[in-house]
């Protein structure tokens, strides 16, 4: 009986390693997003700035755009931020969804880091995030002119990912009718 006690650490460790091995087998950035080629779920979020408009699903049609999910407490978002500013400078519309964040914190973040977004909505309770299937910030959805999700980037958009993957996809969506 006492011997079994000493086996507990090894057994627990085996379980952890099994989980890791399973996790390693799949790329964490490829998520089986159920939203691909489907319309965005409905949400209507309050704005970060009191005087601005919020963010609702109906706004996200008409031309291809990016929807970037971020939070002021997210370190990776800070890394991604300069890329978003660059994308904005290239004339691609981005809307921001501030996820699980106090509006004041989110606003402070944008004032400090620069604001790349056209519209920004605050999802304080994280409801819209659940509907979108957000696992961890940052995530970015590529949305076509009909408001359908066409691609999902998990983790920060690196300059490389923008140049090689997302920008070409964007150009293709622009050409679509």
């Amino acid at each position, binding site marked *: 009986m*006492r011997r079994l006690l000493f086996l507990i*650490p090894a057994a627990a460790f085996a379980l952890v390693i099994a*989980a*890791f091995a399973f*996790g*390693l087998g799949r790329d964490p950035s490829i998520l089986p997003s159920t939203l691909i080629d489907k319309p965005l779920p409905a949400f209507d979020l309050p704005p970060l700035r009191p005087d601005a408009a919020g963010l609702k699903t109906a706004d996200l049609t008409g031309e291809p755009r990016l929807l970037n999910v971020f939070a002021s407490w997210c370190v990776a978002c*800070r890394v991604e931020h300069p890329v978003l500013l660059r994308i904005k400078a290239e004339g691609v519309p981005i809307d921001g969804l501030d996820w*699980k964040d106090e509006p004041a914190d989110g606003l402070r973040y944008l004032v400090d880091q620069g604001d790349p977004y056209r519209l920004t909505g605050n999802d304080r309770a994280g409801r819209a995030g659940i509907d979108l299937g957000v696992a961890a910030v940052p995530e970015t959805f590529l949305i076509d002119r009909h408001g359908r999700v066409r691609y999902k980037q998990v*983790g920060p958009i690196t300059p490389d990912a923008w140049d090689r993957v997302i920008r070409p996809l964007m150009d293709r969506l622009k050409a679509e009718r």
Partner: protein
Amino acid sequence: MTAEIGQLALILALLLAAIQGIVPLAGAWRLDPALMAVGRAASLLQLLFVVIAFVALAACYGLDDFSVALVYQHSNIAQPLVYKLGATWGSHEGSMLLWVLIVAVYGAAVAIFGGTLRETLQARVIAVQGLIGAAFLGFLIFTSNPFLRLNPVPFDGVELNPVLQDPGLVFHPPILYCGYVGFSIAFSFGVAALIEGRADVGWARWMRPWVLAAWIFLTVGITMGSLWAYYTLGWGGWWFWDPVENASLMPWLLGTALLHSSLVLERRGALIAWTILLAILTFSLSLVGTFLVRSGVLTSVHAFALDARRGVYILGIIAVMTGSALLLFAWRAPALRTGALFSALSREYAITLNNLLLLAAAATVFLGTFYPVFMDVLHGDKISVGPPYYRATFVPIFLALFVLAAFGPMLNWKRDAPRPLLARLRWPAALAGAMFLGVALVFGIQRLVTALALALGVWLIAGALMVLARRWRLGAAPWAEVSSLARATPLAVIGLVIAHAGLGVTTIGITVVGAWQTNKVLSMSPGDSVRLAGNTVTMVGLRPVVGPNYQANQARFEIAGPFGRRALVSERRLYPASQTTTTDAGIAVGVLGNIYISVADRNPDGGLTVRMWNHPLVDWIWAGGLMMAFGGMVSLADRGLRVARVQRPAPVWSAAREAAVT
């Protein structure tokens, strides 16, 4: 040429590490002194060749050899020399080389300084250390070769990530690695003891300085990392629960537990198997932390997930290393001598509780960090947790730990009585109570948690000082006796007092800055003034400046407060090579708090968006961390004396000393 020398040195080091890992094990088994001596020699030679490889890589950086792929990716000609050299360990491959270097240093240190150890034990420790080194040298050579060449040779390199171009980068990773890898010695001691079937007081006495040294490095490393984040990320946050931060916190928590449990083993011969288990787990968590967060199991800024082979190799190393150690534990530990008994009110018991709380804290961090992986296994979806999770789980555990931390050093070994214990702690309790009531009365009921945390900070500091007061018989004995007792205080006790008080200082810093920080955001032009927390902040100048490899908008401020005037400079930098901007915040440092100003880009109206914070007592967070590390150093100085004295055959003496030191 230099790169090839480095490559060759690495291969030789791998062969030597394999010899170091195998021959002394056989030697210890057959009690053959010659074979055991081979291990010592191999560990020194292995160190020599790893040093050669490391110097070779540093030389490639220093000489701008862009034919080496790694140098091309992480350096360029305009980069200042110190950051060229710092870039040696700024990449994945380079940091692995640093890691291997430190493993080799520790192995050689046991060979050089371990002469007083039982010879078989020393041989086995060196062997296990050699196996660890071999595993990582293999990883380096086969999956992360730092010396790969490029053809054709580029004219200039890309650039080191500007966020990393900071004095912090030069010191932070080596110090942190000395901490992580330092625990490899504890692991080697633990496994060697299991192979040997013997772990006694002498074993613990030998291992503890190494654990303490590693713990000091890790404490300084975490403190520096937090400070670095504070002034580079541009908004004054000091801890983010990022996987990489958690990776350093987990081994720190278990290392702290190990430090305390090995104290019990050393003094009282108890908690033997538990201490060995902690030694194994602490290093395993260093491994899991440093590598798994980067292996692609988790999405992280720091991931090198592009190459799946690396992740598989790392997981293999961890599985084999920790797995075999834990199986060895399951097999051999039940036969180890069980330790002395102690009552439910004794210092041993308090330390056991401390260990359980630290283990629970480490477990919550582990679960939080790897939650997305576990959720994926169970439900097939990925969810990560944020700061609210840690506030709800980690913080309460630590509050309980703080309550305990003042009790522990006040308890007698073996057994104690509740009434005298409470009498000993009446002053700390009174001060903490006063703090709680004061804060609760002044700031009202909604500040209850703040009041509690502040009271605990006071409780920790007063409780630590009480250890000295009690030992010196302050107020109970005549002054002459007090001063002679004070002079006779062992350094270890002073170290304990400083470290525990440091914990209190950190607690107060965290609490005050969390509760009372204020900030303002506004557009300012030179000449504008604004009030912030009793200070007047004036922008006195704004001009563009050009650095060695960046351009910046530099804003100068003057802060007039109740304690005089302070100047402050804040910059927004653009690094043209990689089109990256960074914020170089200006911070006016003060004992009572910092004024922290970061500037963003220019507004269309010509002003500059300025964001300023008042961070009361924020420096206490790091001051407390450094106090903990300093306490460890003081204690280590004492240990040096005692280890030297242990060589004398003096069991009677140590028993007498134990009675004298309570």
